[in-house]
């Protein structure tokens, strides 16, 4: 299980290939990649985080997922700092013997990362800046687990 919180870009293809190659024994690998959408003239997305707590919160969430779905492995990479539209913000990968477990664990990780990992997004536009508000549906998504 690897958790990385970093400002640097990551190489999505290389990460997915390395993760998948490393889990021979699993039959199913699911990945999720979050990308900055160029909505409404967005020029940048600034991501603030809580160093120390971030790594701990994500590691706790990932360990829960590994235990609950008997995952062969899990990977979380999450960036902070200033990102441009089209750049990858974060990714998760899960590996399990069967597809249902890999899918569920990846969705669980995403639901928790959205609402329980200490990151805050700010949208930068020519017209001004605005913090992204938490969505009720993201909080609601947690209740299914």
């Amino acid at each position, binding site marked *: 299980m690897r958790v990385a919180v970093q400002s640097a870009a990551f190489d999505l293809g290389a990460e997915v290939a390395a993760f998948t190659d490393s889990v021979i024994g699993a039959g199913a690998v699911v990945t999720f990649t*979050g990308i900055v959408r160029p909505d409404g003239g967005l020029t940048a997305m600034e991501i603030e985080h809580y160093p120390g707590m971030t790594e701990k919160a994500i590691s706790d969430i990932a360990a829960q997922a590994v235990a609950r779905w008997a995952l062969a492995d899990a990977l979380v990479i999450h960036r902070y700092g200033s990102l441009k539209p089209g750049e990858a913000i974060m990714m998760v990968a899960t590996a399990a013997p069967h597809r249902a477990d890999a899918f569920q664990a990846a969705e669980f990780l995403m639901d928790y990362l959205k609402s329980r990992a200490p990151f805050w997004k700010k949208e930068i536009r020519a017209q001004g800046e605005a913090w*992204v508000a938490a969505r009720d549906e993201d909080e609601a998504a947690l209740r299914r687990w």
Partner: protein
Amino acid sequence: MIEVLYFAWVRERIGVPRERVETTAATVADLVAELRGREDRYAAAFADTSALRVALDQGLADFDAPLAGVREVAFFPPMTGG
């Protein structure tokens, strides 16, 4: 003496990312009441605590949680990761 951290718009309203606070507050809510009484920028940041989250020593907590033994308190809006 307790280390208090602020993130996102809480940090922007208060104007500093962290500070050391001399306090005898028994709970998070007591600490918030103390801070609110300090200056307008604190009153503005803590106007509606239902819009805020708190972490004690880097773990999420409730506003009625006790502060005994806590070294680091962080205030921030609901998280928007992923």
